[in-house]
């Protein structure tokens, strides 16, 4: 009987420390972000764009929704590359998905119009 109690305690110790599955999945986004922030060249931009596409296309997190900020930053980079239409579309998608972003994204959209 005592043996079972020990097993239970040990199991609990492991269980209570294990990281639960996150709300979202991010692929290699953090590494690509660092790389882009540091280098800001064509190659590092391509890498981070790839990561946004993957994150937007498929989510493995528990919410199964694109995480906040991804569509907006992706849109921002598209605009920087000259793809204004697709860029704006992504910015608007961010507002639809996350209405709290409206104040900020509307400001960006206005800046683009200028």
């Amino acid at each position, binding site marked *: 009987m005592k043996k079972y109690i*020990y097993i239970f305690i040990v199991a*609990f110790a*492991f269980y209570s420390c294990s990281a639960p599955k996150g709300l979202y999945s991010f692929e290699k986004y953090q590494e*690509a972000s660092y790389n882009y922030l540091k280098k800001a060249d064509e190659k590092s931009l391509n890498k981070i764009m790839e990561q946004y596409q993957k994150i937007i296309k498929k989510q493995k997190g528990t919410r199964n929704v694109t995480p906040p900020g991804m569509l907006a930053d992706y849109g921002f980079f598209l605009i920087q590359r000259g793809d204004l239409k697709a860029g704006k579309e992504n910015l608007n998608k961010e507002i639809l998905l996350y209405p*709290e972003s409206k104040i*900020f994204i509307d400001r960006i959209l206005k800046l683009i119009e200028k």
Partner: protein
Amino acid sequence: MKHSIYLLLSATLLIVGCGTTSKLNKAQAYKGMYEEKPVSVLIMPPINRSTNVDAKEYFHTTLNVPILNAGYYVIPPFLSMEILKRESAYDSELFIEKPSLKIFNKIFGADIILFTKINKWDKSSLASQVTVEVEYILKSAHTSEILYSRKGTISYNTSISSGGSFLLNMVASAINTAATKYVDVAKAANNYIFTDLPKGKYSPMFGLDKEEMAGLKVIKVRLPR
């Protein structure tokens, strides 16, 4: 005799394994978070007082993920960096002690602002251990009150890969080995620090974690566990 050894071992594991908690529950420790119910978080560029010039970027690019996974809206990092630069507000030192942070609510729609200070980044001579000392301060954009803060001394063993991702990282990304390792250090530190943050609007635990015991404000930890 044997039994008591088992018991002692399991008890030690239980204590060591989960770190220490304060005597307060989250509702007491993070009263402002539960009252204000912030949704949007603005991440300010870290203040780097360490000797590692890249430490700022290691931390800056790995702060949003743990906060997103805690259920908050994080203002798009690259877009916000661009606007902060345009408004000559990229230097966090200018704002960390400001009595009013309302301007960030007006421009970004932010409810809380995250400031980080990297005080130390020490690499051991064996090059397999990095020790960082970092402060995290989450301030309300509405009241400027500190809603959540941590001062952590975090030692990270870079020779232990986190879930076998290290090799994958090397192959998958174009960054060099050292940078990948150090991004891992910042990731581990940031993930650890925000595990105690009350859950936000997008988490199924939103508002339900008040009775959980809160962690300590000053921590010392070795990662990965």
